[in-house]
């Protein structure tokens, strides 16, 4: 099915099941430990061996020699694979560095060997006996030092310009020119990267934690040099991904290589330090923002430049992209520059681009409002635009940012914010409020599904879509139930298997809308097939309460499957509506925070997010997505930083004791409001993404609240007390 004209009324609009806050159907499995994750597929793969990965102890250089003698003799060892013995390996389309290094080493903890043994403990013990002799070469590890060597990236749009930024900025009455930095971030999801590999002849089955089954299947095939048809990926449950599991990582490859060498199935899980230095991370940025406005607060010029680094062949953090679309202004420019760094591979993490970009931009907007003597909410409203500011004849499909801002301000009690910073005090605490706009583009991806009606009146949906903790199982079941006129408990959803039709996968907040649109397409076909079987006019048939009705005639749906299952398969593809209309999601974040006047410790008191993101398919799971994202935003604001050892070239704090993420005590009550919205340009579901919108702008809202509390502007994340304690007034 092709979606190339705006959606009109369709069965989803009935909202009997879709749009209802139903519980996650996988919830009971997860809370009872019966949802089996990749590393727990002991029933599917009994008697597998264990592989343990050996990582490079240097950041850049070469392996001179590897001594496996002691490891090979260690108890229980079945096989050891290195680049030398692995056979020819290619590099996947989505990987920047090779997943198995040697002799060349590209980054710290790049895998150099996998040791396979009977038990996990034996594999780990033997891995510690592998002796690798390295020759180090000098590397570049310091983004600030490499900034001037940064170049235009090979892919993507590196520069944009509309009007005359330089002249517009120079002529502006009120100007801001400020630098901001964001550090490297770790996805830090709970489930580690983990895989079990089993070969049957030349066919490989991989149970693996992966967000994008078809991408993964393709890259496994490329890397191993085998036909894609010979690879099966299975990923029914995923314990968080946040972009860290978009791509095949070393656990999957080394499980496959280990299994081939040991001639039996092998399980590999990456230990936490490897998740930080072996896999991907959100790259650090340096950002320069210039804004010029007239005295009455109208933006005349807005410029955003961003520098980030990656391994050779990698990509930049696209931190400027929201600045092209979020605010009005005739004169505009953005620039993206990429430096070569020899740190582990940078890549997507929740809301890549916007999350980092808004961390800077939404502080800058707060600073501008202050310079203008305007309320930050009003300044944003004044500079709203209903069209793409670079192409004024191109409207937004929906843009209710102003309503988000006004609704949020009212609900949060924004009028109680002290206009002058550092003037509100509650005992030993300095108290402040901050806010930020949220913006994240809406992406749509082709997505397919297969649906089957059986004689018992049950409908089974199969798609290689993944549920990374987001609620995919549930919204897909809701979609099928709504389309087929059946209660939710008559729907079975099977996900995450490459033998199922290729879906959008989970990433870029496209999964919810795209995958359900694919299920919609398949259900339209199934409805046709059922109506035909029942001798009813497919175009007139109404599917409701387990019956198919045309006029006075009503037949139980089960009757269609009396002689055998009815099966339909289709996918949803997209036309040019995304080109003709700018599709984005919008929101506003409000935060109240307090700062210990003596120690500078920061604690968040209240948070509110107002989101305008199309139809909310399930308010309960959507709220969970948003409060999780807000929590991650607090982490980015106040504590998360992968610290680079600029001499040795690695992330030093590579465990969850050193890389702090918020704990329960850090997170107050979180309020989430969804505006009642449908977007007919996005898909027949009229939904958009929301899971990433939730993090966009949060960190800046927190930083702005800290400024409002203390009067000290911190432009380098995370906002930690060491960056401003010297400027706090004496302890009373």
């Amino acid at each position, binding site marked *: 099915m092709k979606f190339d004209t705006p959606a009109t009324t369709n069965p989803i609009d009935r909202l009997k099941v879709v749009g209802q806050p139903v519980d996650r159907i996988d919830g009971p499995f997860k809370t009872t430990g019966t949802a089996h994750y990749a590393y727990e597929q002991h029933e599917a793969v009994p008697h597998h061996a264990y592989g343990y990965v050996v990582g490079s*102890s240097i950041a850049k250089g070469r392996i001179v020699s590897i001594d496996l003698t002691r490891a090979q003799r260690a*108890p229980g060892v079945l096989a050891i694979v290195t680049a030398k013995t692995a056979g020819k390996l290619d590099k996947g389309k989505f990987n920047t560095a090779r997943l198995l290094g040697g002799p060349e080493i590209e980054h710290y903890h790049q895998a150099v060997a996998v040791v396979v043994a009977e038990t996990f*403990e034996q594999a*780990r*013990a033997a891995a*510690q006996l592998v002796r690798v002799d390295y020759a180090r070469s000098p590397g570049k590890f310091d983004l600030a030092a490499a900034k001037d060597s940064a170049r235009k990236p090979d892919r993507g749009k590196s520069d944009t310009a509309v009007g005359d930024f330089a002249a517009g900025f120079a002529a502006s009455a009120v100007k801001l020119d400020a630098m901001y930095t964001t550090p490297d971030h770790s996805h830090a999801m709970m489930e580690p990267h983990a895989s079990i590999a089993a070969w049957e002849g030349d066919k490989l089955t991989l149970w693996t934690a992966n967000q994008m089954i078809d991408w993964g299947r393709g890259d496994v095939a490329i890397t191993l040099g085998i036909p894609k048809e010979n690879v099966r990926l299975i990923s029914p449950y995923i314990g968080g991904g946040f972009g860290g599991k978009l791509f095949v990582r070393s656990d999957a490859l080394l499980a496959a290589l280990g299994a081939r060498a040991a001639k039996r199935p092998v399980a590999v899980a990456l*230990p936490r*330090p490897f998740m930080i230095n072996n896999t991907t991370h959100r790259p650090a940025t340096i950002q320069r923002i210039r804004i010029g406005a007239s005295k009455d607060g109208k933006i005349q010029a807005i410029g955003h430049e961003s520098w980030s680094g990656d391994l050779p062949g990698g990509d930049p953090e696209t931190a400027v992209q929201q600045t092209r679309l979020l605010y009005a202004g005739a004169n505009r420019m953005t620039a993206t520059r990429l430096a070569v760094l020899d740190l582990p591979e940078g890549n997507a993490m929740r809301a890549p681009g916007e999350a980092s970009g808004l961390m800077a931009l939404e502080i800058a907007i707060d600073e501008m409002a202050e310079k203008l003597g305007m309320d930050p909410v009003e300044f944003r409203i004044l500079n709203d635009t209903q069209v793409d500011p670079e192409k004024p004849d191109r409207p937004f499909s929906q843009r209710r940012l102003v309503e988000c801002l006004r609704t949020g301000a009212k609900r949060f009690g924004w009028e109680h914010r002290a206009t002058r910073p550092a003037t509100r005090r509650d005992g*030993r605490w300095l108290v402040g409020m901050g806010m930020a706009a949220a913006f994240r583009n809406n992406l749509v991806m082709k997505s397919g599904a297969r649906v089957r009606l059986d004689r018992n009146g049950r409908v089974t949906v199969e798609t290689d879509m993944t549920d990374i903790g987001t609620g995919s199982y549930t919204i897909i079941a809701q979609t099928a139930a709504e389309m087929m006129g059946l209660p939710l408990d008559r729907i079975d959803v099977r996900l995450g298997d490459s033998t199922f039709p290729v879906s959008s996968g989970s990433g870029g907040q496209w999964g919810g809308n795209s995958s359900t649109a694919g299920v919609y397409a398949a259900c339209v076909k199934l409805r046709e097939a059922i109506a035909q079987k029942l001798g009813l006019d497919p175009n007139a048939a109404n599917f409701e309460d387990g019956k198919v009705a045309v006029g006075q005639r009503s037949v139980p749906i089960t009757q269609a499957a009396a002689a055998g299952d009815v099966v339909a398969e289709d996918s949803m593809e997209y036309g040019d509506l995304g080109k003709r209309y700018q599709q984005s999601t919008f929101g506003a974040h409000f935060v109240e925070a307090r700062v*210990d006047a*003596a*120690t*500078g*410790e920061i*604690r968040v008191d209240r948070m509110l997010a107002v989101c305008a993101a199309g139809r909310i398919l399930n308010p309960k799971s959507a709220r969970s997505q948003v409060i999780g994202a807000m929590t991650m935003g607090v982490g980015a604001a*106040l*504590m998360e930083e992968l*610290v680079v*050892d600029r*001499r*040795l070239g690695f992330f*030093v*704090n*590579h*465990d969850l*004791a*050193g890389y*702090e993420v*918020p*704990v*329960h*005590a*850090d997170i107050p009550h979180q309020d989430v409001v969804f505006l009642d919205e449908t977007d007919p340009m996005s898909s027949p579901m009229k939904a958009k993404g929301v899971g990433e919108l939730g993090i966009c702008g949060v960190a800046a809202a927190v930083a702005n609240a800290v400024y409002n509390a203390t009067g000290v502007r911190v432009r380098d994340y*995370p906002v*930690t*007390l*060491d960056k401003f*304690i*010297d400027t*706090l007034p004496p*302890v*009373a």
Partner: protein
Amino acid sequence: MKPFTYERATTPAAAASAAARVPGAKFIAGGTNLLDLMKIGVEEPAHLIDVNGLDLDTIEPTDEGGLRLGAMVRNTDLAADARIRRDYPLLSRALLAGASGQLRNKATTGGNLLQRTRCPYFYDTNQACNKRLPGSGCAAIGGFSRQHAIVGASKSCIAVHPSDMAVAMRALDATVETVRPDGSTRRIPIADFHTLPGNTPHIENVLAPGELITAVTLPRPVGGTQLYHKVRDRASYAFALVSVAMIVQPDGSGRVALGGVAHKPWRVEAAETEFPKGAKAVATRLLAGAQPTEGNAFKVTLVERTIAASLAEAKEAKA
């Protein structure tokens, strides 16, 4: 992880004697730190002696009017004990500021004193660390040192002791009781228990090989207002940037010990004579000779401000 043998000791003296007999032996109590370190190859004991069954898990009054805390008393139980809460609230507060509920349920009084540093270079066996591998160097010096020591460090090591409990015990003048492999016992004032790194950062206390902590005794309650102020980036489950254990008497005299600044709980008794002069004077004496790194110089300011906040709070509590 290196394979190891395991035994359950039957008496403290037998445990100490076994530890001296088997080369590379270590005691295991709660295991909250040791097991982690064994998994990543930082600790590689050849033999573990389990001391959990030694009946060292009671809190009893001493003849001197204090309390004797068995070495195996769990942190959770110690923090919740009514006598501790009433007479040594500083200790209860420090305990509850540390780790998480689950860890405190396992962690023991003796084990807490023997925690290893959380220096990330100590935890990464690829990196130079004189504490882990004497003579290999110190990667933390010139590296990421935000959490590290500002006083009492050396050219060999700038690690800090991570315990909160020990900081409170230092302020309370606790005494560590031990049994040695020959069956003899001794009492070590907590002031003398932990050592500075010097050229031997792998040595962290004065225990002889095989010597087992059996108890910690607290002297008679000293009263006063007792505060434990732990400063950290997140609200819970984080090691201190700095912590201040303070006891202030109605007459304004008091005691103060610091965590997160040195290789051991940091107390300079002479600094306590400065209480009447206020935080700056106390902090200056406490941190005399401080040599912070570029990454942790903020701790000097933070210590002074946290002492000031604690003094103010004590004043308020009195009023």
